[in-house]
């Protein structure tokens, strides 16, 4: 059977693996490649896990019963990247195939943008839903850390990394968030959550951190300022606020992120799952080193090294524990502002999607800082929503709404409100 969607999938490379027999179904969804589903390979974008076919479904897959799983979407290796160029497949931007989809859940955003009525589930270890949603011109909802069970999710980082939803319409967020959220005995963090209440609360007040548009591109600044004016015209009160500890968010996020990543990556050494084609005559250490050196990508190696260093000697106190303390300060900054406002507004990304070649060449430290708006809410476990808010050179620009822990309700209201007020464009090749 041939589907009209197949050429699109081939051209834009959003899937690492897909089931062609489900392409023409109505209720379709996909999983980023770090979420397990029986019958599909789960590599988290890594050569290390090539061939790993889990024998169980992730919690979200069980809850999506009745919907058709098309396949697994391409992503950065273990979620380590902002442009989906560090994994085993590079998805193409639906608005310009020469440009990046953003990352790490880039394939998910591409699928949401190109496949009519499709729901893409992605994961975010530091803005990995907001970034691709902004670059691909779709809605990206990252719920509170713990709102959706992570049972069956391959760990990149532990204290971040919620599963979220990317879609082209707000009613899909409204329909699927309640379906896949809730407590799960198999994920203790999910047990902390209060009940999800959706009451269609009206968005009344928003805060914009002082200086948030410093050092962003002119097109992003202009689109963001126009969007703030549009919100004001809809009777949303907007105030500029001071968040003095926000400057710690990015460095602290990366310390915690690489430390947790290095710890989680220890398990990948040519045993139990994934590749096991090594030389069994080697001593243990040599066997492990051979796998990790051969099959980890450059960014994963770099994070393993940096994360290992963060836990050595005095660095544990001076860097890692200090960063956990800094996270408290950043959370408190957000809580203080969100005590007086419904949401905090920021741009989603500081520029429009770069060319894939430029993204591949970008140095790691430079790429980390591109997530300076998208990463802080995830670092703090706060829910956030990216919406398209403008276009430059035909490429989408995103704006981010951040709300208080467990308050996804106001983000769904914001998505509805924004969808009615702003003329969102769809990629021309859509089917």
């Amino acid at each position: 059977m041939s589907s009209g969607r197949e050429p699109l999938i081939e051209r834009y490379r959003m899937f690492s693996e897909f089931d062609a027999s489900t392409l023409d179904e109505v209720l379709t969804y996909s999983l980023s490649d770090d979420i397990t589903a029986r019958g599909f390979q789960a590599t988290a974008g890594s050569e290390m896990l090539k061939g790993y076919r889990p024998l169980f479904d992730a919690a979200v897959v069980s809850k999506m019963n009745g919907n058709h799983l098309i396949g697994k979407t391409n992503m950065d290796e273990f979620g380590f990247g902002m442009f989906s160029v560090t994994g085993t497949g590079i998805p193409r931007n639906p608005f310009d195939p020469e440009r990046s989809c953003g990352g790490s859940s880039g394939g998910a955003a591409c699928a949401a943008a190109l496949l009519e009525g499709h729901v893409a589930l992605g994961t975010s270890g530091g803005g990995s839903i907001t970034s691709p949603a902004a670059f691909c011109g779709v809605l990206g909802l990252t719920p509170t850390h713990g709102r959706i069970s992570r049972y069956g999710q391959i760990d990149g980082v532990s204290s971040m990394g919620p599963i979220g939803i990317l879609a082209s319409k707000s009613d899909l967020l409204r329909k699927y968030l309640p379906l896949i959220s809730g407590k799960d005995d198999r994920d203790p963090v999910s047990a902390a959550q209060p009940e999800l209440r959706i009451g269609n609360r009206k968005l009344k007040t928003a805060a914009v951190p002082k200086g948030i548009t410093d050092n962003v591109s002119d097109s992003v600044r202009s689109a963001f300022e126009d969007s703030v004016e549009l919100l004001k015209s809809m009777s949303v009160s907007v105030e500029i606020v001071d968040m003095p500890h926000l400057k710690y968010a990015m460095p602290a996020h990366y310390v915690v992120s690489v430390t947790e990543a290095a710890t989680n990556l220890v398990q990948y050494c040519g045993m139990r799952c994934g590749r096991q084609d090594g030389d069994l005559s080697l001593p243990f250490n040599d066997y492990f080193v051979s796998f990790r050196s051969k099959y980890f990508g450059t960014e994963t190696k770099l994070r393993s090294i940096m994360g290992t260093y963060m836990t050595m000697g005095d660095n544990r106190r001076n860097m890692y524990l200090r960063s956990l303390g800094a996270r408290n300060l950043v959370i408190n900054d957000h809580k203080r502002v969100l005590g007086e406002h419904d949401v905090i507004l920021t741009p989603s990304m500081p520029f429009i999607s770069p060319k894939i070649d430029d993204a591949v060449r970008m140095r790691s430290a430079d790429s980390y800082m591109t997530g300076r708006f998208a990463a802080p809410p995830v670092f703090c476990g706060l829910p956030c929503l990216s919406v398209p808010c403008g276009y430059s050179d035909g490429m989408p620009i995103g704006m981010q709404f951040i709300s208080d822990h467990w308050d996804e309700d106001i983000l769904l209201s914001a998505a509805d409100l924004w969808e009615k007020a702003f003329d969102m464009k769809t990629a021309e090749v859509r089917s």
Partner: protein
Amino acid sequence: MEKETVKRVAGVARIDLPDDDLERFTDDVNAFLNILNALNDVPEDDSFRFEPIGVFDALRDDVPVVFENAEEMLKCMGTYNGFVRGPKIV
């Protein structure tokens, strides 16, 4: 960080860095460490937590269950006055 230190830390992480890659990795590690300088003025605070949200132990409800064939089941294990006999500990 010097190249030798990067190579040593990579070894602890069970990653072999060939000399051709070492310079690039050293540059990347040092660029990363430069970003972290902003943390130098974070006040010392021991009230950190490992999750960004409050996490608590959630115990399942203690629900008594009646076994309809309890006597049959007890035949398969040691008993004492109608109770299941556990293994000797001391």
